[in-house]
């Protein structure tokens, strides 16, 4: 019952968010600011994680293929598809849930407990739309862009790993990367990234928006935002994979 009530309240929050902004100029300014903040500030962590995921994946799969009759060119293909289909969209989304999600929830939560949201409402401004919509749309742009970077960098990480481990040569690895490429996997990955970014931004904004109390509650809202976003990401990862790939 409590879950249904929360779901209803979340949907009502979304309905309030997706109303026409009160002033387009202010909306675009906030939107570009958020895109820059989310994309630029998160690129470093996404790059490091992606390079290492690619490197580790090569070693994991390479060690299992060694000594088998399977040609080593398959390594590049396996690593590429694993990165594009699962590692890049899901791990980047989980990292973003922790980084962007907690930031959104604590920012909006602090505005709520210090009556800044109430001040917006009193002025006749749609507070949900003003504080959350630029963040939601910015996340929908920034996170898939980070996922694209991650796909590329994880394969680069794989190549670096090949170079140092001497498991296979970089040439053979790249030959594998170029083998039987299926463009639909990228579509699938970006679809997952789109859903994940929407879930992260909306769940986090909602948790911030319903915060009541003080600093402790803002902390709890931030934690709840991350936990709920992670669960939603994994759940929709499974649903979308089932729907699109099977």
């Amino acid at each position, binding site marked *: 019952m409590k879950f249904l009530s929360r779901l209803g309240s979340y949907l009502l929050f979304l309905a309030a968010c997706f109303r026409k902004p009160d002033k387009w100029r202010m909306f675009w300014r906030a939107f570009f600011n958020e895109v820059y903040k989310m994309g630029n500030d998160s690129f470093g962590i996404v790059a490091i994680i992606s390079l290492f995921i690619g490197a580790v994946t090569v070693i994991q799969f390479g060690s299992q293929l060694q000594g088998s009759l399977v040609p080593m060119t398959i390594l590049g293909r396996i690593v590429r598809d694993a990165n594009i289909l699962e590692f890049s969209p899901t791990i980047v989304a989980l990292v973003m849930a922790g980084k962007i999600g907690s930031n959104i929830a604590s920012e909006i939560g602090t505005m709520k407990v210090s009556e*800044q949201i109430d*001040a917006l409402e009193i002025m*006749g401004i749609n507070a949900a739309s003003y504080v959350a919509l630029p963040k939601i749309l910015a996340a929908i742009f920034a996170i898939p862009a980070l996922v694209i970077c991650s796909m590329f960098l994880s394969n680069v990480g794989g190549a670096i790993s090949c170079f140092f481990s001497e498991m296979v040569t970089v040439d053979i690895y790249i030959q594998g990367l170029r083998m039987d490429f299926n463009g639909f996997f990228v579509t699938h990955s970006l679809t997952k990234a789109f859903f994940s970014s929407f879930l992260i931004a909306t769940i986090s904004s909602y948790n911030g928006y319903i915060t009541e109390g003080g600093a402790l509650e803002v902390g709890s809202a931030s934690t709840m935002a991350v936990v709920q976003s992670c669960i939603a990401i994994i759940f929709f990862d499974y649903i979308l994979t089932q729907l699109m790939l099977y």
Partner: protein
Amino acid sequence: MIELSSICKSFNGREVLKDVSAVFAKGKCTFVIGASGGGKSVLMKCMVGLVTPDSGKVDFDGRSFYGLDYQNKKMLRQEIGMLFQGGALFDSLSVEDNVAFPLRMLSNMNKSELMDRVNFCLKRVNLENVNQLYPSNISGGMKKRVGIARAIAMNPKYLFCDEPNSGLDPLTSRVIDELIVEITEEYGITTVINSHDIKSVFDMGDHIVFIYQGKRLWEGNKSEIQDSGVFELQEFIKASRF
């Protein structure tokens, strides 16, 4: 004029407001007084639509707030200014941008008109040369004054002040009180002030509403308050003075 009729509000089965009715006259300062937790803030939130009452009516010059559709409610809210207990200034904006915010969002003023209005409002609350400071860099009294400047930026017809003196020293409290009364008289605003500062009430209140445990126990002016015959009100005044 603001008219409240039979406002009731409960939270989780606990009645916070019980059939509260009152009238707030145009161009006057009406004080809503009562002990902490007595329902003053909830009543104010019901009046401005931050909390929806379970039953009852709030009329702003004949316009029933809860009977209005989304657009009309939005228009009415643009006629309301509110000074919050903690100021509720936007942390990420400078003093100047805080005052300019409602003008940027809701008016079509050009940049120079907007800056003229911002500077006028800041000057009106006796704040100059603080335009570029941030809320974290100014004192509590200055935050309240910036809050008043932001509240009057859109030329409101109705001004709501929630505990404007809380956390301020007696001298700054007096400055804030005088400012609110001056602005009310100057612009003919209907002002409602939540307070438990009896000194302010006796100095400034045109009209007083006493709320006790969610009920409106007494309503009148400051000359009648001593002879009200309401025991709870007399006790409240006595406790506040000593």
